[in-house]
């Protein structure tokens, strides 16, 4: 009897905790959900004044838009390289820092420090490093390489990948370090007694416990990879070299022209892609992560 009451709570108490959700729900509805409904509506009419239903035509136009194609291709190419790198390099760092090396917490601080530093503050240094006559080119010339005008060449992707890793590796590393700490010690000890080497331990024990974290870091890095516009914008402005033209550039420039149909169709399309990606990753976690969840 008593247990039952505790679970359900008295009516008034439940009412209070439900009411607590209201301010946030109202805000989310007003600023995100309801306008997103309008965005979906806008994506299917010809213009906000005539409001004639045109079905998928806006989407078709969007797909045929050269700027959109280039922007999504560049963004996809960037994410495909940067996200796995961010996911696994930070895992590597966390595993290395788990070993007994001197100055561990100092190194942790250094790796985390880019998180603190606003990108805008250091963007000049990046410009100096990767200028046509800049430091990286000087070093490359010293070793007999050819200089590249980094920010105006296809290799510009390398620069923004480096900036992305610089900014995000520390954060991901912390997530892994805490996950590594929470692996039950006794399992590792048993493995050690049985003579398992550290490589065996890593792949057969630790990796399994880490899989939810790997998934989370992956999603987080993916989300952050869509923010790379910030770095490109600060480095090169609204109209960068072709390979650096990102989806957010496309959105920004479409905002300037107030082309609601294109914008709406792009937002809806992108949200669908995101939902599919997240769903696939969550299903993958359900399949692979099950055996260690308690």
């Amino acid at each position, binding site marked *: 009897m008593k247990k039952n009451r505790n679970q*359900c709570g008295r009516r008034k*108490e439940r009412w209070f*905790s*439900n009411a*607590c*959700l209201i301010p*946030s729900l109202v*805000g*989310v509805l007003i*600023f*995100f959900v*309801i*306008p*997103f409904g*309008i965005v979906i509506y806008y994506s299917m009419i010809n213009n906000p004044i005539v409001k004639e239903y045109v079905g998928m035509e806006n989407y078709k136009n969007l797909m045929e838009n050269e700027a959109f194609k280039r922007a999504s291709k560049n963004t996809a190419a960037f994410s495909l390289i940067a996200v796995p790198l961010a996911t696994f390099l930070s895992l590597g*760092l966390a595993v*290395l*820092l788990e070993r007994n*090396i001197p100055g561990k917490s100092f*190194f942790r*601080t250094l*790796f*985390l420090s880019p998180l*603190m*530093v*606003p990108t*805008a*503050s*250091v963007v*000049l*240094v990046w410009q*100096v*490093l990767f*200028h046509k*006559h*800049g*430091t990286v080119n000087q070093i490359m010339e010293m070793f007999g390489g050819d200089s590249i005008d980094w920010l105006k060449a296809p290799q510009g992707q390398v620069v923004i990948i480096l900036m992305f890793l610089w900014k995000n590796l*520390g954060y991901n590393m*912390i997530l892994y370090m*805490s996950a590594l700490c929470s692996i039950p010690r006794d399992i590792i000890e048993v493995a050690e007694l049985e003579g398992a080497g550290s490589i065996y331990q890593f792949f057969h024990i630790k990796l399994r416990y880490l899989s939810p*974290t790997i*998934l*989370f870091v992956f*999603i987080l890095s993916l989300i952050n990879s*869509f*923010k790379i*516009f*910030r770095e490109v914008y*600060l480095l090169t402005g609204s109209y960068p070299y072709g390979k650096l033209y990102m*989806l*957010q550039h496309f*959105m*920004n420039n479409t905002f300037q022209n107030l082309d609601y149909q294109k914008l*709406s169709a*792009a*937002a809806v399309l*992108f*949200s669908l892609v*995101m939902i599919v990606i*997240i769903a696939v990753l969550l299903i993958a976690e359900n399949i692979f992560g099950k055996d260690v969840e308690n």
Partner: protein
Amino acid sequence: MTVKRKDRVFNIVLTVFIAIAALAFILPTVLTIANSFMTSNEIAANYGAMFGNMNGSEHTFISEDVNLKFIPDKVTVDQYKSVLIKNSDYLMKFWNSVLLTVPITLIQLAIAVVTSYGFSRYPGKVKSIIFFAYIILMLMPYQVTLVPNYLVADKFGMLETSEHLIFKGAAKPLNVFCMMWARRAVILPSIFSPFSIFLLTKVMRRVPVSYVEAAKLDGAGEWQIMTKIYLPMCKSALVSIGMLVFIDYWNMVEQPLILMKNTTMHPLSVFLSQINTGDVGLAFAVGVVYMIPTILMFLYGEDYLVEGITYAGGIKG
């Protein structure tokens, strides 16, 4: 014995490797700080090639190469003097950043406390569905969320605002609220961002039921349970999450670019990208001034920050 020695050698190699990697991570920051103590002539000489014609650089030799320098020839605080005293533009933009970031952080946290309490007390099916929807919203990139935000801002005339300072005399400090109100196009959607709710709910779910039961026996109501039990137990989590939110919005570029037509209200982060052609001589010092709040936060509360990051851990659970 040999195994141990091999281990030791491996550890040394590893330490050196990590040290080099760590140095690379701190390098851009250190360079920015070091360069902020140069005279503007020296900056023109070193980096002039990057920006073409520069003011006051006619009698300075500009090499074609861009020379990255660690240590200034002559250490001065001239750049800082210009940034902080002579030219009020930068301080204004800094103030713009404060006017956006501080209210967003504080109000987002306040909403998160109440909402997370709602999510963690009496969990049920409906609540978990809503919570999952919040996670999806949290994972949506700006390319998706800024479009609805823009529609709302446009509908309610928030895009083109200016500061009407209506308070006079002794009430002048209240004008801060007018300034924030002028920035509502960015502030309002940001305070409802579900990020801190997501983290704080995870923390609040760990509050032991026995505490709540005990308080109830003593006659505490729901409001008291929230303020006297949940809130004190989440104090350090609130600090950590607050730091993460602050850093995120201090660094923001996308939202003001789209939601604020009035460029005089743009934060320093956006303004810094336009600095390049004009006052390059000052840009390093401005950059340093801009990173001071977050750096201080980091030095003071690194452990809080690390704790805050680890609350996330995974999407579920």
